[in-house]
């Protein structure tokens, strides 16, 4: 049997999706379905003096108009909780429906349910809310200034938390004795995730059973069930079933528990009817948790040889108006802990202030903290290359953690399990034709408006947050393991129940490859079930590039258990000792006697017949595992971006993009490349185009796709990809993660390239996104 791990078999998900047969939440119908429209605050900050729902309720076909009063009257907890706590974290209540104060444009104030969507929308226009507008602050730096409008009374100065990692004194000492120092003030621009499918929910409550089924756009149905029942609706967990049908992308935005889904659940309970809500694109932009939004001051100290001696980082990170599900973890444990990058840095200190602003909450978005950390480190490395005269390649090489130093303990808690950073850099240079490019660049320097620049990003990533005990000690209110139940049928086909919930990644294909490879059977003989809390044992879901490393490992563990049990059954049938049995290519064989063997199917059938069966064994051939990894995994790589900058207009053209990534063993190269392509598009999008802009009054002025520029295919170029392979030493598959790598590495590569192109103009930094006007102004100032 040929190996199926490492082969690009086609995604089994695609035929249904590309022929339009895939069923997304909004495609689902139900008997007696009613439709909800949520009335939202047009103000960033206002007091609600009163709400008059009578005109809306009077429209024929309107079934209910609910406000915060109805939430209170329902006697339910009625809040949206935060799922990660930090020491001294200020946790103001986030009500499902705002009661007396709204804190961002889009905050829910009422919900209208009607017989059809149009009616509900018409009625929503008739809900009269009497607002008293208050001063608002949308900018993360302005929110920290004295006298800034306050978002929550409980949070003086708008500070949600004050967090640090590493030690300050050694860093101060490093700077005091440094031969070179570089420093930078930067903004990491706020982003809107833009999953192509907006968030949607169809909640069906049945008063005769007290059960509710909720179909919704979820990356982690079990986590949603827990938060929905415990904190919002106050229902018994076992009475709620959450199903994630096809989910059209998430990028983090569908991890979090939002008010809207809970509101729709409440409507269904009140009306005893199924109720559906699908966000409009405008609502998506106003309510999906945003990403990034940092203001950072950072500096690097180096000795005379260009070796880094210290790194200092101080960041103000926007939380938005409320603390979203994982928000406090993102700019802390997923950010400060990554500050060592690929480098051996003896002293690091990172201080982060979490800041409330009158904006949409900020939470995990593809990369979540790691892109921000990589941006800090890799922008500083670019400047260090200039300051030391070593250039971008040599300064990095000189500081790489050496391959024999693993496991490598950083100064910021993480211990890198494995890595070999030089070869990825070598390969990237070779692919891009570095020397040639530098001479092309030199020949353009003195003539012509179009300058070439080359930018590097040697990134580190930490995915598959683990182990649970450690993550718990850092404040997570959730475990970070994953589950898998693998069932071999009597006919030797297999069904896998995984807690990892796919929303576009191709889990069904990849996971079937893991099982097929280990069992020596055809991937077509493996079915993968996910995204349904009634079918699947508790699971943690899909985020943080964890599915292969954690979810895949759980599956591998279960398969191994099945093989162990199968050996006992086969040994009984073959009258041999289980220790003498081997499993290979789908057969159990007695070692040394090749003709004494039984196929998986023979053994599976006997496991279910249990007629001729070991006395001490239970019938059946299935196994469940809850796999809790020993550590994070640490993918890495070097990306190189080449740009041409039209200095006359400030326009940037991408010329080349080469990425060498080490994601450990690869299960399906095509899917891995696809993940990189998507991540690169988003990271390049952040660098060049994407920006969530609020005006002074807290209005989101880039709230539509007419103003917020997501990258389109014609904006991008073919990416040149290659890999090195350093298997993860601590999981059974040797896999790491790839879902976020592209988005983590690329912003720094692009900005470094542009800054490199503009070096003759004395430009050392431009904040993202590098719009033509900003570049033009920098060139002309």
């Amino acid at each position: 049997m040929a190996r199926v791990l490492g082969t690009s078999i086609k995604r089994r998900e695609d035929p249904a999706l590309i022929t339009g047969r895939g069923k997304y939440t909004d495609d689902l119908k139900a008997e007696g379905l009613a439709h909800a429209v949520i009335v939202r605050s047009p103000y960033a900050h206002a007091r609600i003096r009163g709400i008059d729902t009578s005109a809306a309720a009077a429209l024929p076909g309107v079934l209910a108009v609910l406000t915060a009063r109805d939430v209170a009257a329902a006697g339910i907890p009625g809040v949206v909780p935060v799922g990660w706590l930090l020491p001294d974290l200020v946790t103001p209540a986030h009500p499902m429906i705002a009661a007396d104060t709204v804190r961002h444009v889009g905050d829910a104030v009422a919900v209208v349910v009607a017989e059809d969507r149009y009616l509900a929308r018409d009625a929503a226009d008739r809900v009269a809310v009497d607002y008293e507008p208050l001063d608002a602050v949308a900018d993360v730096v302005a929110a920290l200034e004295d006298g800034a409008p306050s978002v929550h009374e409980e949070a003086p100065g708008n500070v949600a938390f004050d967090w640090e990692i590493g030690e300050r004194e050694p860093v101060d000492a490093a700077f005091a004795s440094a031969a070179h120092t570089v420093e930078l003030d930067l903004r990491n621009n706020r982003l809107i995730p833009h999953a192509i499918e907006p968030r949607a929910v169809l909640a069906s409550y049945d008063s005769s059973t007290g059960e509710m089924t909720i179909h919704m756009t979820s990356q982690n149905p079990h986590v949603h069930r827990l938060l929905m029942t415990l904190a919002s609706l106050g229902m018994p967990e076992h009475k709620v079933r959450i199903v994630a049908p096809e989910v059209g992308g998430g990028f983090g935005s569908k991890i979090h528990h939002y008010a809207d889904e809970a509101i729709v659940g409440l409507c269904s309970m009140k009306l005893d009817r199924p109720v559906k809500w699908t966000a409009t694109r405008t609502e998506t932009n106003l309510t999906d948790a945003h990403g990034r939004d940092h203001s950072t001051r950072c500096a690097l100290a180096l000795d005379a040889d260009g070796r880094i001696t210290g790194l200092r980082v101080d960041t103000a990170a926007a939380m938005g108006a409320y603390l979203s599900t994982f928000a406090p973890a993102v700019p802390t444990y997923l950010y400060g802990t990554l500050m060592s990058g690929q480098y051996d840095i003896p002293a690091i200190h990172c201080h982060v202030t979490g800041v409330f602003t009158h904006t949409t909450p900020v939470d995990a978005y593809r990369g979540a903290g790691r892109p921000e950390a990589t941006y800090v480190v890799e922008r500083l490395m670019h400047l260090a290359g200039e300051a030391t005269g070593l250039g971008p390649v040599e300064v990095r090489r000189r500081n790489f953690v050496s391959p024999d130093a693993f496991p490598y303990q950083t100064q910021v808690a993480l211990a890198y399990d494995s890595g070999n950073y030089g070869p990825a850099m070598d390969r990237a240079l070779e692919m891009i034709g570095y020397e040639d490019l530098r001479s092309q660049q030199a020949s353009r320097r003195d003539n012509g408006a179009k300058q070439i620049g080359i930018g590097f990003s040697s990134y580190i990533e930490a995915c598959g947050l683990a182990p649970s005990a450690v993550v718990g000690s850092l404040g997570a209110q959730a475990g970070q393991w994953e589950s898998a139940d693998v069932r071999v049928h009597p006919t030797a086909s297999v069904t896998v129940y995984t807690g990892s919930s796919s929303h576009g990644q191709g889990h069904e294909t990849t996971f079937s490859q893991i099982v097929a490879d280990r069992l020596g059977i055809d991937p077509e003989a493996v079915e993968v079930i996910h995204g349904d809390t009634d079918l699947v044992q508790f699971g943690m879901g899909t985020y943080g590039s964890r599915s292969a490393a954690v979810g895949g490992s759980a599956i591998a563990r279960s398969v191994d258990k099945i093989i162990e049990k199968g050996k006992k059954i086969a040994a009984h049938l073959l009258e041999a000792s289980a220790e003498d049995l081997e499993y290979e290519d789908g057969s159990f064989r007695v070692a040394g006697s090749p003709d004494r063997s039984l196929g998986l199917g023979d053994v599976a059938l006997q496991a279910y017949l249990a007629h001729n069966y070991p006395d001490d064994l239970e019938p059946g051939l299935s196994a469940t595992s809850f796999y809790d990894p020993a550590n994070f995994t640490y993918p890495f790589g070097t990306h190189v971006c080449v740009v041409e900058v039209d200095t006359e207009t400030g326009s940037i053209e991408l010329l080349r993009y080469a990425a060498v990534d080490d994601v450990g063993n690869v299960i399906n190269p095509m899917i891995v490349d696809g993940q990189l392509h998507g991540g690169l598009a988003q990271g390049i999008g952040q660098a060049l185009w994407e920006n969530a802009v609020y005006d002074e009054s807290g209005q989101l002025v880039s709230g539509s796709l007419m103003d917020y520029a997501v990258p389109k295919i014609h904006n991008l170029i073919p990416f040149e990809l290659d890999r090195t392979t350093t298997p993860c030493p601590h999981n059974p598959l040797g896999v790491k993660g790839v879902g976020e790598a592209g988005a983590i590495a690329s912003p720094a590569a692009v900005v470094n390239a542009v800054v490199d192109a503009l070096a003759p103009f004395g430009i050392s930094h431009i904040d993202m996104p590098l719009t033509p006007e900003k570049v033009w102004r920098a060139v002309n100032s």
Partner: protein
Amino acid sequence: MYPAQFDYRRAGSVDEALSLLQENEDAKLMAGGHSLIPMMKLRLAQPPVVIDIGRLNELKGISEAGGSVRVGSLTTHADIAASDVLAAHCPVLAEAAGHIGDAQVRNRGTIGGNIAHADPGSDIPPVLVLLGASVHLQSPSGTRSVAAGDFFQDLLMTDVGEDEILTHVDAPALGAGTGSAYLKFEHPASGYAVVGAAASVTVQGGRCTGAGLVVGGVSATPTAVDVSSLVGTDLSDDAIAAAASGLDAEDPIGDIFASGDYRVHVGKVYGKRALAAARDRA
């Protein structure tokens, strides 16, 4: 996104469309629907009645006669971009239409709807002004024509009266020795023109005998640049740059992507580049 309630009427002829307009106050004509429907979905437009003129074949088509080209108002951007008649007689119009949106937008959107909507980032208006085109309108009381330069009045405002239908556009054909070009600086989000520069240059015996430049996107309406200084020159790069730098806008429009100042600057650069491209094609 759900529009407010409206009635839908489909007109079988221009006359029927005109009487439907008369009968229904605040009704809106719908051609390709690609500007109207988004406005309705956002509830920025809430017409009680939509009159669909999309199937009026009498308003579709491209022809040339006596040194003038005629484009029916319901002709799609895709048909304009692919037209042999325009390629021969008015290539700059086809070039501009080819820059509009994506294939779906070009297959639905029409020239009449484009100029009646009059978005400052539209690609067609500066070209029509450059060409000295005339816009033809019909109402129950008759027909009239307006010079393109007078047709565009302000942001989303034109000379189309409430009882009028735009029937076609006429433009003088560009003769031998005339090169033209449309250059677009695309908005990365909307795909509309931040700046669109339409230029034409006529050359005889190595000397320029006529030149025009109109820039869209910097002001509410297309901005014509006086480039008469090019006449008589050999169209050197320097002469072209000097001429294009005459672009002036009283009150340039700006947004979060590009300020007014920057648009004027890009207008000059793109104007220069469009003129140079037109010269090279002459």
